[in-house]
């Protein structure tokens, strides 16, 4: 009941005309930017950060909630009509969604994605409402050792789960961790890796790195491939509505996707990629038409898209209640909190209940607004897809530099942006995932803080991480995540050898 009272207070905050206006602006620009090809949710949030600088925190985060959900909706449009998923969570949607678009059923694919996102978003937001306070209560039992172990686990899942190669993921993670070292060490005041450049004393901004990797690096990569690739956009034609058959085939995948997606997002278990794949496989197994999968099955759009949105809502639970980002987008949201001098975590629920609950309430509102924005007005968003590429990417560059510059009104940030952009291009060419780098950059310093706090409490006894049962089990899970694939491969190789010898 306490939760419901808090939520009601949140609605009272979110439903004031002023905040409602920011929520509406948030979902609209979130969708508009998220629809643009090459811009995923993480970049959408990063690019729109400057828009919120002049707002007071509560309104700013209400707007962020809208941007976050809006970007998720917009992203599905790009994957379906262009086959250009902006983030790993929409890769699965793109397979059958794009196949549907080829068959002239793009409107139905978009509709089942939008309604599925609404259903999943709403159920997952309800789940978030009740899970977040539970997590807060759990977090109060956590000491620094447990926090450190949890952060190690989060870093591991982000790395081990994303991308095709563990080594590449780790390279990206450690690069992010090294960037996190730059700046003044908070506990001793010693400068680390600043090379005497005063602007580096404050550290390297997560937003600059995210924009550098996602916007500049990606633009450089697209520029390098532009001459060699063609893209097709499929116009929306015919009825825009779902037929009775479509509804019948969609509603169960929506619900199943939701229940797969939320836990994966809420546990630090690697965000949206796994649940969307799981949802696809589940639907394929349960479907009466498995042969249609990969060729435009509506279930394969409905399920994964619902899973994606539910996971996106789930990610907010550890972010708000533990201060633990488990996706690149969440890392940027955490950076946004830090811009306002706020640290998400159990205390935030006590000190800023208006902000936290106002933000959660506005997620409900945002979902309704998005359904209204996306179903009747989908034709309008589709027009954004046909912006000529030279202008689109030139515009992305302008706004990327604008965002980086306005952080500190500093040209040094633009130099960092350029360097990170070039590195991002190299990573893209060599197929190194960028999300672990962004999460590592923001979590690294937090993990170090907890690590040193834990050792200060234990008076330098390092066994503290292994004698606390909770911390030990989290660390064991993290180790298993890294080692299990390696061990499995070793076992399989040996077995393969034996078979080879046997035959």
């Amino acid at each position: 009941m306490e939760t419901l009272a808090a939520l009601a207070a949140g609605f009272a905050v979110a439903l004031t005309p002023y905040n409602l206006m920011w929520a509406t602006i948030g979902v609209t620009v979130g969708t508009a930017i998220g629809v643009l090809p090459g811009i995923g949710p993480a970049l959408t949030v990063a690019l729109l950060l400057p828009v919120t600088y002049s707002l007071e925190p509560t309104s700013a985060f209400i707007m962020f909630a809208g941007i976050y959900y809006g970007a998720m909706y917009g992203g599905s449009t790009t994957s379906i009509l262009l086959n250009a998923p902006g983030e790993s969570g929409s890769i699965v949607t793109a397979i059958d969604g794009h196949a549907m678009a080829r068959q002239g059923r793009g409107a139905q694919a978009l509709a089942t994605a939008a309604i599925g996102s609404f259903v999943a978003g709403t159920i997952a937001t309800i789940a978030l409402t009740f899970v977040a306070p539970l997590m807060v209560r759990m977090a109060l039992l956590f000491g620094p050792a447990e926090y450190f172990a949890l952060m190690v686990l989060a870093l591991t899942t982000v790395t081990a789960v994303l991308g095709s190669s563990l080594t590449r993921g780790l390279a990206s993670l450690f690069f992010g961790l090294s960037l996190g070292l730059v700046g003044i060490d908070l506990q001793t005041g010693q400068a680390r890796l600043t090379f005497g450049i005063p602007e580096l004393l404050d550290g390297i901004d997560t937003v600059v790195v995210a924009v550098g990797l996602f916007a500049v690096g990606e633009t450089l990569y697209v520029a390098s491939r532009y001459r060699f690739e063609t893209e097709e956009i499929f116009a929306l034609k015919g009825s825009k509505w779902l037929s009775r058959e479509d509804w019948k085939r969609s509603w169960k995948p929506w619900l199943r996707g939701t229940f797969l997606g939320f836990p994966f997002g809420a546990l630090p278990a690697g965000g949206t990629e796994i649940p969307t794949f799981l949802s696809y496989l589940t639907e394929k197994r349960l479907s009466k038409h498995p042969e249609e999968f990969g060729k435009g099955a509506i279930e394969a759009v409905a399920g994964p898209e619902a899973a994606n949105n539910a996971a996106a809502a789930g990610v907010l639970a550890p972010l708000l209640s533990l201060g633990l980002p488990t996706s690149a987008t969440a890392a940027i949201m955490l950076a946004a909190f830090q811009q306002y001098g706020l640290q998400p975590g159990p205390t935030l629920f006590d000190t800023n209940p208006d902000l936290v609950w106002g933000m959660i309430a506005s997620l409900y509102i945002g979902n309704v607004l998005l359904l209204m924005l996306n179903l009747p007005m989908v034709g309008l968003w589709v027009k954004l897809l046909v912006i000529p590429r030279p202008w689109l990417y030139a515009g992305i560059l302008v706004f990327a530099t604008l965002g980086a510059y306005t952080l500190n009104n500093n040209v040094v940030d633009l130099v960092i942006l350029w360097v990170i952009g070039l590195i991002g291009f190299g990573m893209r060419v060599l197929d190194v995932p960028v999300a672990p780098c962004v999460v590592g950059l923001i979590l690294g310093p937090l993990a170090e803080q907890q690590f040193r706090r834990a050792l200060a409490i234990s008076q330098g006894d390092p066994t503290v991480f292994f004698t606390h049962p909770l911390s030990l089990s989290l660390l064991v899970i993290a180790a298993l995540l890294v080692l299990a694939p390696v061990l499995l491969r070793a076992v399989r190789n040996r077995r393969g050898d034996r078979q080879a010898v046997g035959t």
Partner: protein
Amino acid sequence: MTTGRSLKLGEAGLGAAVLALGGFIAFQTAQAPGAANAVVGPALFPYLISAGLMAVGLALLREALAGKIAHGGGIELDGGAVALVSGGLIAQLLLLEWLGFVPASTVLFMIGARAFGSRRPLVDAVLGLALTGLAFTLFNYGLDLNLPLGSVFDSLAGAPD
């Protein structure tokens, strides 16, 4: 056409770079004065991270030498376009505080559009001016941010700000 062979070189380069970064961080950390009063000093994490970097760097080198690379079949890359975009960014950051946000970003817009095959610099210039002008107005007057007007124009306009 960037072939599998140069990608393999790139991959080895990645491993070497990661390895070198690890070594560099260890060196820098060893150079920094130590802080003796803390239980865990500011040097422990840098050392841990540099050890991790070196281990990953070695693993990457091993993979590269074993031929396990991304885009095994090679990938076509247009180096000229990359150089243009990167040059455009440099031009903007050099011009930004001197000429101001609008002209500097218009230059970036034009160069960026050129890299993506636009052949109409005048149209790009007009569009770039409109876009950056709009952004400047919105951010400086609507959202109270300080995008630079340009030191050249400050004296001309005599603006107090």
